[in-house]
């Protein structure tokens, strides 16, 4: 037991002797916005992240207050927001406009100040023109001057800035991402900070809404949604613990037998039903581990132009791994490259003609008949079109075998990554002849939110490359020698394989591996066949979640293929909807229960972790990511306008990175309506805060929590509920807000 941390950041600025600088004031004010990632690599975050230092109820109340203020529909506020949105969209555009806003390399505030002088919507009066002509060079000075002009008292300045920023939480969040999370070299083209963002907003306020005042401080009573939430969570917790309790008893008397294959899946909730489906096909054992497999890497596939981060956003990648063609002669590689540049040229020709004057008039007539045919084919026979275009693609650009080249990672690091991964997932003995690391990714068409369905642990990308790299590492004899020295012996007949689970179609593709012993061939064949059987079983179960129960295997597979390839489909898969719990323990704890794809499963063996180091990592990294995801689904469902993306039907992609609603709006961060609702007014996701279940002694868990501020914050403030199933007694204990245990 340890003492709960008091809330550290208060809503109101703490008045100190020296007044805070503008930069500090903006930092304090921006706690109400969470970073917003671009759609291409969308990362789930808690939209109330900046308020996690408060108890959940207070944070919700504060968020609702800000939200109510953001709905304050004063004409002045609206005029300011309209122009602010206009300049944000123009400045942050990442490739839509052919003629871009001039002078963007100077930063958001300065390039705005430079152009605003010519903006007839702003220069209405002489005083306005005079102000625009004499804007200070630094955004801090501009903020100070604007606050003076509007007449905001010093004590209220932070709150005023907060209310200004929070009136466009999506755009503000995007700026926060740029400032705090974007890679520095990418940021240089269009640098921006929240100070600049606030400066632009305040300049616009002075010009268009000089009568602006700080808005009322009313705090509403605790919203009723909290009571509903708590009741729903208690019901779920009870039913989950009733399922797990008997399993814990069995665990103690468990015999170990060598299985035919061990398959390691991502902790993602979509893995759980598939794991049960493959286990049902034969003597298989499955494990759960973060889908980047512990590798802090940037990867570059054979057809990628650049290397891309493939690890959680909380980690800085430290190695670059490129795929290189293997088993392929110069001629076939040449064909592949020629095909690739042909395909690329097709897209370029189109864009050259599209983005000029006069040529688009000819372009539409050149392509009209072709696009008409494609339109009807994609609408009426999407699976067929997708197969046909895949065939055409591989005819033009024949596939080549490629495998990752590990030269970028020194042998010691390779061994360290391999050992850490195996130990953390509790796989230190009793290796099967085949061990498959299975990353995951989705496959959808015409879906702006495709990356939200991919692997969050890989930075919103497909996880296959990481799985393959880990398999390569562990197949290296030198690595095995090092591991052997460290007491982790891998049998000679064990082969590691990489794979990728397509979560939209439940297809598992095994990457080819070289130098596999011949005796593995038959095992591999059987595994492939069983994976197909598991696919069918899971497809039948999943189509039922779309209200299409009772399909036979082939029909279910066809339906999943259709959802994957249909350009009109707004629900290619449910993603992580209905996620509710994070279970840390051995596979046998959950193997014989049905969790309905609602649980993140992380394999863990407390006996192999005497110091609690692995548990600390699991709770502070994968669990935190799970909490981000859980909060995103929770809040997108509770209030889809405030924290979600709204309906896909009226979304408009801006700057090739974000979604607005209709003509123009705030940047709609969060999940779209269709991802969490099965129909208008009918949520599919069940809003719940994350429940974490750890199978380890309470005392050990206590020690971990006491040492980690982030855990004290999340558990102590009620953002996550923790239940510990103590193996010594098999009793479940619930961690209270004061961080003491109570019987669950």
């Amino acid at each position, binding site marked *: 037991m340890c003492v709960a941390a008091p809330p550290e950041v208060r809503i109101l600025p703490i008045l100190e002797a020296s007044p805070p600088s503008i930069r500090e004031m903006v930092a304090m004010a921006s706690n109400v916005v969470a970073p917003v990632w671009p*759609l291409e690599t969308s990362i789930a975050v808690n939209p109330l992240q900046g308020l996690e230092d408060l108890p959940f109820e207070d944070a919700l109340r504060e968020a609702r207050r800000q*939200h109510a203020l953001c*709905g*304050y*529909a004063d004409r002045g*506020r*609206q005029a300011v927001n309209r122009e602010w*949105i206009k300049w944000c969209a*123009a400045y942050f555009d990442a490739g*839509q*406009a*052919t003629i871009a806003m001039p002078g963007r390399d100077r930063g958001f505030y300065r390039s705005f100040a*430079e*152009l605003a002088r*010519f903006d007839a*919507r702003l220069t209405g009066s002489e005083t306005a023109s005079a102000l625009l002509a004499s804007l200070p060079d630094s955004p801090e000075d501009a903020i100070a001057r604007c606050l003076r002009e509007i007449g905001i008292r010093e004590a209220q300045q932070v709150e005023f800035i907060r209310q200004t920023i929070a009136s466009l939480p999506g755009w503000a969040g995007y700026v926060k991402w740029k400032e705090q999370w974007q890679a520095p070299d990418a940021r240089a083209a269009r640098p921006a900070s929240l100070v600049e963002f606030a400066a632009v907003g305040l300049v616009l306020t002075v010009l268009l809404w000089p009568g602006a005042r700080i808005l009322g401080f009313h705090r509403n009573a605790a919203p009723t949604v909290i009571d509903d939430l708590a009741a729903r969570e208690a019901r779920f917790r009870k039913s989950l613990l009733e399922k797990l309790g008997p399993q814990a008893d069995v665990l103690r008397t468990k015999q170990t037998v060598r299985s035919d294959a061990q398959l390691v899946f991502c902790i993602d909730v979509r893995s759980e039903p598939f794991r049960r489906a493959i286990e049902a096909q034969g003597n298989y054992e499955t494990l759960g581990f973060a889908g980047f497999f512990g590798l802090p890497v940037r990867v570059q596939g054979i057809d990628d132009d650049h290397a891309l981060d493939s690890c959680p956003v909380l980690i800085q990648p430290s190695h670059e791994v490129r795929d290189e063609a293997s088993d392929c002669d110069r001629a076939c590689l040449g064909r592949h490259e020629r095909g690739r540049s042909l395909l690329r040229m097709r897209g*370029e*020709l189109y*864009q*050259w003609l599209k*983005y*000029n*004057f*006069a*040529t*688009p*008039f000819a372009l*539409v*007539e*050149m392509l*009209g008949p072709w696009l*008409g045919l*494609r*339109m009807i084919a994609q609408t009426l026979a999407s699976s067929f079109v997708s197969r046909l275009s895949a065939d055409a693609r591989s005819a033009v650009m024949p596939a080549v075998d490629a495998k990752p080249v590990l030269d970028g990672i020194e042998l010691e690091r390779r061994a360290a990554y391999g050992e850490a991964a195996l130990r953390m997932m509790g796989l230190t003995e009793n290796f099967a002849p085949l061990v498959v690391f299975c990353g995951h990714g989705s496959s959808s068409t*015409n*879906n*702006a939110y495709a990356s939200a369905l991919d692997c969050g642990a890989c930075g919103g990308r497909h996880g296959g490359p990481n799985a393959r790299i880990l398999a390569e590492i562990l197949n290296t004899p030198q690595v095995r020698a090092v591991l052997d020295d460290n007491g982790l012996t891998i049998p000679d007949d064990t082969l590691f394989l990489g794979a990728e689970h397509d979560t939209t179609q439940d297809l598992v593709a095994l990457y080819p591996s070289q130098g596999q012993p011949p005796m593995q061939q038959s095992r591999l064949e059987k595994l492939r066949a069983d994976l197909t059987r598991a696919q069918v079983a899971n497809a039948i179960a999943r189509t039922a979640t779309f209200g299409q129960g009772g399909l036979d295997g082939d029909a279910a597979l066809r339906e999943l293929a259709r959802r994957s390839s249909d350009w009109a489909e707004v*629900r290619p898969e449910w993603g992580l909807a209905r996620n509710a719990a994070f279970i840390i323990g051995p596979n046998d704890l959950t193997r014989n229960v049905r969790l309905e794809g609602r649980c993140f499963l992380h394999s863990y063996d407390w006996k192999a972790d005497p110091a609690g180091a692995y548990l600390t990592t699991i709770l502070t990294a994968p669990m935190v990511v799970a909490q981000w995801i859980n909060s995103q689904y929770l809040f997108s469902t509770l209030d*889809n*306008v*405030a924290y979600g993306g*709204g*309906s896909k*039907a*009226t*979304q*408009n*992609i*801006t*700057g*090739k*990175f974000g979604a607005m609603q*209709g*003509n*123009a709006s*705030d940047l709609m961060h969060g999940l779209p*309506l269709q991802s969490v609702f*099965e*129909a*208008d007014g009918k949520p599919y996701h069940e809003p719940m805060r994350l429940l974490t279940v750890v199978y380890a002694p309470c005392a050990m868990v206590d020690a971990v929590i006491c040492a980690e501020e982030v855990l004290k914050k999340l558990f102590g403030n009620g953002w996550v509920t923790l239940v510990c199933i103590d193996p010594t007694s098999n009793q479940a204990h619930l961690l209270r807000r004061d961080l003491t245990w109570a019987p669950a």
Partner: protein
Amino acid sequence: MDLFQLHAEDLFRADSLAWVMSGLIVFVIINVRSYAMRYLAGDRFQRWHRFLVLVLGGGVLAMVFANHLLVLLAGWMVSNLTLVRLMIHKGEWRAARYSGWLAFRSFGLGFVLLGAGFWLLAESAGTASIEALVQQDELNAMGFAGLLLVAIAALIQSAAWPFHGWLTSSLNAPTPVSALMHAGIVNGGGFLLVRLAPLFAGETLLMHALFILGLATAVVGTFWKLLQTDIKRMLACSTMGQMGFMLMQCGMGLWAPAISHLCWHGLFKAYLFLSSSSVVGEKHSIVSAAALSPARLVLASLSGLGGAVVFAQTSGIPVSLRDTSCLMAILAVTAAAQVSVGLLRRPLSAFLMLGTFAAGAGAGGLYGVNIHLIEAALGSLHLPPPQPLDAVYTAGVIVILAVWAALLFNLPARFQSHDRWKQIYVASLNASQPHPQTVTANRTAYQS
């Protein structure tokens, strides 16, 4: 009141123009309804949407098969009103309601002008049958006034500058409705002009006015399109530019090419709207001739001319320097030359030169063949010949070439730091903004 004389046998007439237009609209409606079946799954307005799309289709079909002016007017009204309702969708989102209201206002004005124009035409000719009307030799003053009003109604329907506001503020509509709007409803103006082509062809003044407004719309719409930062407004401004080009073609007496443009643009734009969620993370590739050596520029120009020659062969248009048909060949030159400039940035080789000429010829040929298809489909329709090339048309063609060349040589980027350019940029950015009431300035004002 000749407008109200109804004879059952002359209410409808099926000519090749009606068949081509109805083919387009039926095709688009089949697509949009089928698309919306999944795209609007779970939307409580879905059934209504699918029903209204059918009503809209009925209205458009009545309009294109109409032989009686009143039938055309009725079809016009039904399809426009249905579109407004489709745009508003569920009705709770204020910005969407206002977009609908803007469209309603424009369409209402268009309807009144069209009704008045039809009345004047019918009174002056003594008949409300379109077939009889277009056979008249001379229009009297009343007839001319009627034709003028009809032309304005066409400009409003096709979102010509300065009547474009409803179109550039219409993106609060669900995506399939935008597809329907850009592939169907905006074409109404072009259809109307071609329907009455024999009357317009004799009025040089009207033809020049159509040409100039069309050109202005084409230049402004395309320029705005290049500035836009969101996909849907980019597509809307692009449609504006394309409609301007189609009106220009009408103003030049290039009637069949105008219908060809309207059809193929419709399919192109519907496709782009329906696939507009795919643009996330897409890379942008533009081409500039600024860095090209003179020798390569000559090659690119030759390839452009080659494209025009192939175009003339394949399009079936008797291209002549004496009438406006040369504009079509000039467009083929720009397209073929643009492609060639892009290709010629690579290291020069015999293979590259061959490929460049092939690409230029291919561009011209593809353009020509597709126009030929529509021309052939319109075959039996006796449309007036292109206008003779006079000073107005020549000046217009020069403007088109100048703007094209300026962008090809990337002048905007070179003048980035000049105050004059900044002024133009900000003014154009402002002019292409949607109506303020149709912007969702407060997040909470959005209603799904």
